């Protein structure tokens, strides 16, 4: 084995730094300067407000807030920003990456070990980046008798479905990628895709272990979809709407978990089963069927499937927060900036002025957004913590016990939950569709 934590030697550090400096100088000289010369001398630069838009002017414009704030403002209100950065892919991927790292560290501490430690200076923070680079660099091996079009398409479909699921979750008031009136129904439809994709990828691999894993995944996901949907009916009855943003707004005073705890528990257990987390990780049972339906995936296909799994985890946790814990509602943590500061302050010799920020802070980056995001993230992280914990505590469940739980006990509890909701409604304690 190589040296794990090599001793520090000044000569090697200086050598590394000089090496980097040399290469930077070479690249800048050979590539950077010609590009700048071409831009300056051969491209027709536009004229902005009487001045030629040279690169110098562009740089100063970026630093000038009055000119750049409206740009940022309009960019943040585009659809592209919502899809790619927030609350869409970038935000979800960041939380997913954080979840993977937190899971490994949490599991390690639970099992009296340390977890990722060496990659990255502080307790292995860069471990995920290292894993990602490793997966990209590995060869993708396709079994000879596999059904190649479906086999290639399966991880992509998986990520697509997971991304569709993420797109439906509202993070802050007005900030959701797909604002549909039947949001909850769309969620059920997307959840219904996952068993199909799993069985497609298992079948197309044309091998014994993925076959067993795929069949088990099909059993598991299908039998837990029914209690999942039934347990949410209670919330729909009490709110009278299927739109996820409106469900959150109806919880401005009380989150629904206070009135429907049984439904929340049933939803949580079904969530664990849909995500194939321990104790329900039969489709990927290592000690019996090597890696279940993921056996034949290698390289970046495996990376995509893992990313999809964790995106699904974030989406489910987000759904739980939206439906039962009140979404983005919560007491005001960061107050909105008063308008006097926005239009400029002068305190003695110090003058602060951010022209153009008034409209930006008012319209887009307002206190509502920041508070909503903070509360949503806190609640989601809490729910994710409870999803990650059973991994260190429980062994794997057996398939007939799994089916008994899914078909008998959870459907029973879900019906109990519906009766509680109907009872609350018809006894007059709550009225349907009231937004407090």
């Amino acid at each position, binding site marked *: 084995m190589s040296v794990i934590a090599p001793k520090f030697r000044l000569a090697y550090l200086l050598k590394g730094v000089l090496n980097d400096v040399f290469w930077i100088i070479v690249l800048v000289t050979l590539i950077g300067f010609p590009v700048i010369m071409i831009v300056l001398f051969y491209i027709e630069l536009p004229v902005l407000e009487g001045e030629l838009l040279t690169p110098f002017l562009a740089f100063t414009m970026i630093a000038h807030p009055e000119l750049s704030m409206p740009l940022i403002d309009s960019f943040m209100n585009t659809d592209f920003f919502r899809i790619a950065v927030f609350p869409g892919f970038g935000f979800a991927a960041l939380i997913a990456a954080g979840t993977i790292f937190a899971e490994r560290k949490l*599991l390690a501490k*639970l*099992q*009296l*070990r340390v977890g990722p430690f060496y990659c990255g200076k502080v307790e292995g923070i860069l471990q995920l980046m290292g894993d990602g680079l490793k997966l990209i660099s590995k060869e993708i091996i396709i079994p000879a008798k596999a059904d190649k079009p479906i086999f290639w398409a399966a991880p992509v479909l998986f990520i697509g479905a997971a991304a569709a699921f993420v797109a439906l979750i509202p993070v802050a008031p007005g900030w959701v990628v797909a604002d549909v009136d039947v949001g909850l129904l769309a969620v059920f439809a997307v959840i219904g895709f996952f068993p199909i994709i799993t069985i497609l990828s298992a079948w197309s691999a044309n091998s014994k272990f993925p076959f067993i894993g795929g069949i088990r995944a099909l059993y598991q996901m299908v039998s837990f979809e029914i209690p999942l949907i039934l347990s949410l009916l209670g919330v729909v009855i009490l709110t009278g709407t299927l739109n996820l943003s409106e469900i959150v707004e109806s919880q401005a005073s009380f989150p629904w978990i206070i009135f429907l705890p049984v439904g929340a528990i049933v939803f949580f257990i079904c969530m664990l089963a849909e995500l194939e987390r*321990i*104790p329900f*990780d039969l489709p990927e*049972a*290592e*000690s*019996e069927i*090597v890696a279940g339906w993921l056996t034949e995936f290698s390289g970046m296909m495996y990376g995509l499937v893992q990313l999809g799994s964790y995106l699904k985890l974030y989406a489910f946790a987000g759904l739980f927060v939206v439906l039962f814990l009140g979404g983005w509602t919560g007491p005001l943590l960061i107050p909105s900036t008063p308008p006097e500061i926005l239009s400029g302050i002068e305190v003695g010799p110090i003058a602060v002025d951010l022209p153009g920020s008034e409209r930006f802070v008012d319209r887009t980056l307002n206190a509502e957004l920041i508070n909503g995001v903070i509360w949503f993230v806190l609640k989601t992280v809490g729910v994710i913590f409870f999803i990650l914990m059973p*991994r*260190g*505590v*429980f*062994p*794997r*469940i*057996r*398939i*007939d*016990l799994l089916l008994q739980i899914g078909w008998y006990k959870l459907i029973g509890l879900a019906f109990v939950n519906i009766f509680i909701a109907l009872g609350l409604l018809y006894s007059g304690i709550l009225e349907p569709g009231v937004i407090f």
Partner: protein
Amino acid sequence: MSVKIPPGLQLEKVDERIMTLNVGPQHPGSGHMRLIVQVDGDYIVACDPDPGYVHRGEEKMAEYRNYITNIPHLERPVIHDSCNILYPYVLGVEELLGIEVPERAKYVRAIASELNRFSYTLYWLAIYGIFLGHSTMFMWPAGDRELAIDLLDKMTGARVTHAYFVPGGVRNDLPANFEDVCIRQVNYLEKRLKAYADIFYDNPILISRTKDTGVLSREDAIRLGTTGSVLRASGVDFDVRTKEPYDAYEELDVHTNVLKNGDSYDRSKIPWLDMLESCNIIKQALEKMPKSGSVRVKLKPNPKGGDDEVYKRVESGRGSLGVYIVSRSKPEPYRLKLSVGSFRNLICLPYLLKGEKLGNMPAVYWSLNYWPVEADR
């Protein structure tokens, strides 16, 4: 058929409805042994264990080595529990050669034997966790085992395969402040073992997977000739340390743990209870040990036994381990037979797995305290 069949190969006919699975030697769920399992849907119809993957011919090789060079050879079947495999062998050789072991050596042997019991049982518990899919049940025993191995390292110089017992005593005495370190680590181990109850034995999913599976009744356990934790989990109170005490166990106070149900849950609980008992035994042995004295009797070179035979048994981690030595006035034994607990318990496997669900197979199979390498010798 035009296929050339190698001589000696056994063939069998294939059925249409019943599927034959090879839970083979290279499988994350079987240790290094093959189980040929015939399955009808989810129910096991028949199970045919096929040990022999790691068969080395220990007994044959022992006939070529003399009584002293046999010591590192014979401890290889179970490397963690090596002192317990050598124990009946050295007791037998001492009886053949007429050697009397000093008092202090007897107590040191008892301490080494109990520490080996820790090392083996914690490893077995860790692998049981892997079979059930419980990663914490793998990590905690594997981590706590380091304490027992560390003590053995101080005592014998090796972490596993110690080659510590010799006919005439033990190889070397305990190091200087061994007693304090040992008591401290044993106390910590006892605390950790008691913490296992919450996460492992009271875990509802573990209980639902192991309770009432693979039930072995008391009469069957006696009739099948099982031994060790399998026997004690079915209600038979038999432990060689109490019934036929040897060496220092004649003065030590050993309490046998017996449970009544005979299912996989009880079989997985008995080794844990035995480990808690081992903590007491080690502390007793350290107290009662004579504080000074030699630990080894010098032997003449190339000792020969007479025309005699001897059968000795000792309680190892898996059950009573017997050694049968036949000697014919030569420095090598004429015949050496190891009657190991794993091989004796193997007969439970086809008996118990008939009619079980396939998902229960790892739980039942590993709960029989089966160590494939030892059964194959």
